[in-house]
């Protein structure tokens, strides 16, 4: 399965890749706020334009964007149908048995689709342009005030790094186990819900056992490489913010302000 894109970095040399990861996390949060503030065609268009420009600046090919979105297609289709059929609007366009398709329903459905697509695309950009270590360093740094409250910030960050690192490994393993079970006649595609959940057990159990074994081996390997805890740890790449980060922050703040103001005037 070569097309696991979630949580994986797309290495390239771009201005977006070089931004301070702490800023990138803040930008991602600002983007989410901006997207949920947007309630009109104009403001959603601003968000869409932002995502497209950001992808271009990050030198991430459109192909990647398509791959990212593929897994959410079922959700999008479901939301689309649900919104179209059940939205209680005024302007009825079409009446089908007990369902009414209304203009408002259509509108709401289109907005919903845009929101889902944009949020997946926009937030994925963070992991595409930031390595997991940078990401966790940044989270650690952003959350460092919580260390005073004895909150295990470093441990949390380390857990995230490892989770991201193991996503492809575990997905690959799931597929191997599934093929092995299929070869022995297991059937994952037919039967009712209970039958299907039952069919999943022979996958989950070996997967779980292997994950525990991996965890224990990884712990030994980390210990062997002198890992103890965050204390006294240095970094290959120290987090540094510069002119570009400040400039990007200003652009983001401007965009967010624009969207907020436009929404206040119902534009």
């Amino acid at each position, binding site marked *: 399965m070569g097309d696991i894109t979630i949580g*994986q*970095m797309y*290495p390239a040399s771009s201005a977006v890749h070089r931004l301070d990861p702490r800023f990138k996390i803040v930008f991602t949060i600002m983007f989410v706020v901006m997207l949920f503030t947007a309630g009109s065609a104009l403001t959603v268009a601003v968000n869409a334009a932002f995502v497209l420009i950001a992808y271009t600046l990050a030198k991430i090919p459109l192909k990647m964007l398509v791959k990212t979105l593929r897994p959410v297609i079922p959700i999008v289709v479901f939301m689309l149908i649900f919104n179209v059929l059940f939205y209680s609007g005024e302007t009825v366009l079409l009446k089908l048995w007990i369902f009414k398709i209304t203009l408002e329903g259509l509108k709401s459905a289109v907005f919903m689709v845009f929101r889902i697509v944009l949020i997946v695309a926009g937030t994925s950009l963070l992991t595409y342009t930031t*390595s*997991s*270590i940078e990401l966790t360093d940044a989270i650690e740094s952003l959350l460092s005030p919580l260390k005073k409250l004895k909150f295990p910030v470093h441990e949390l960050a380390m857990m995230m*790094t*490892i989770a*991201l*690192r193991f996503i*492809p*490994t575990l997905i*690959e393993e799931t597929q191997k186990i599934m093929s092995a079970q299929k070869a022995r006649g297991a059937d994952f595609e037919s039967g009712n819900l209970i039958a299907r959940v039952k069919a999943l057990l022979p996958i989950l159990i070996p997967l779980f056992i292997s994950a525990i*074994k*991996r965890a224990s*081996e*990884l712990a*030994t*390997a*980390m*210990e*062997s*490489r*002198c*890992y*103890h805890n965050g204390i*006294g*740890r*240095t*970094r*290959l*790449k*120290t987090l540094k913010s510069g002119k570009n980060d400040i400039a990007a922050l200003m652009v983001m703040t401007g965009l967010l302000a624009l969207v907020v103001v436009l929404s206040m005037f119902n534009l």
Partner: protein
Amino acid sequence: MQETLIRCENVSFQYGEERDNLTALKNIDLEINRGEFVAILGHNGSGKSTLAKHFNAVLTPTNEGRVLVGGIDTKDEERVFEVRRQVGMVFQNPDNQIVATVVEEDVAFAPENLGVEPSEIRRRVDEALEAVGMSEYKKHAPHKLSGGQKQRVAIAGVLAMQSDCIVLDEPTAMLDPQGREQVISTIVKLAREQGKTVVLITHFMEEAALCDRVIVMNDGQILLDGTPKEVFSKRAELKSVGLSVPAVTELCAILNESGLDISPDIISEEECLKEVSRVLKG
């Protein structure tokens, strides 16, 4: 006069509680000298991995025995990182020892833990990747590399720690022949050209034949310890503990037994070739 790097004195080790009575190591005495290239052989469950984990203080003897690494007792908790820095470990499954999602960040993991300066980490990472021939992959995602490449990244991770000694626990067991070849030639280079002390745990006899010294373990004890020639000449003894000898050794021994004038202590293909052509010509 050779300098001892790792010294095991009467080491016994038991997993779990005393009553389980599962003794993985039984009174092991062993010395490994600086610069040596040692292979450890033994069937599954003979205690090879348990012993290896004693070399870098991941495990410590459960009896009064002790392990000294560069003179430091591995039971000394204050100095455990000095021990682990000196003796690096590479494990069998390449997937379960890579921590980061970018090759160079993974190689940097150990020096980061040791608090090395960033500019120095950069230098070490580049040097280590160069030494294993993986420089061009430094920005790649490890899960997209081949098994042999992943193991070389793991070796680079140890080199970046500037260990004197590298212990590899069946590093080629999960690799295809091409990956094995890559990893073994990297290991041989480290031992022969860079003068690293290398302990290679393996179940491939051909790999063991490349080393200076072969230690055979059985049931938590050391059964044989000597040069590859000495060890592989004890075919019957090896067979009795479920091990074989390199294919060429087997061949020459059989030819010798059948009355041909072929030396039975051949361990490499070149030697075998020379010996056979000598007999054919003569």
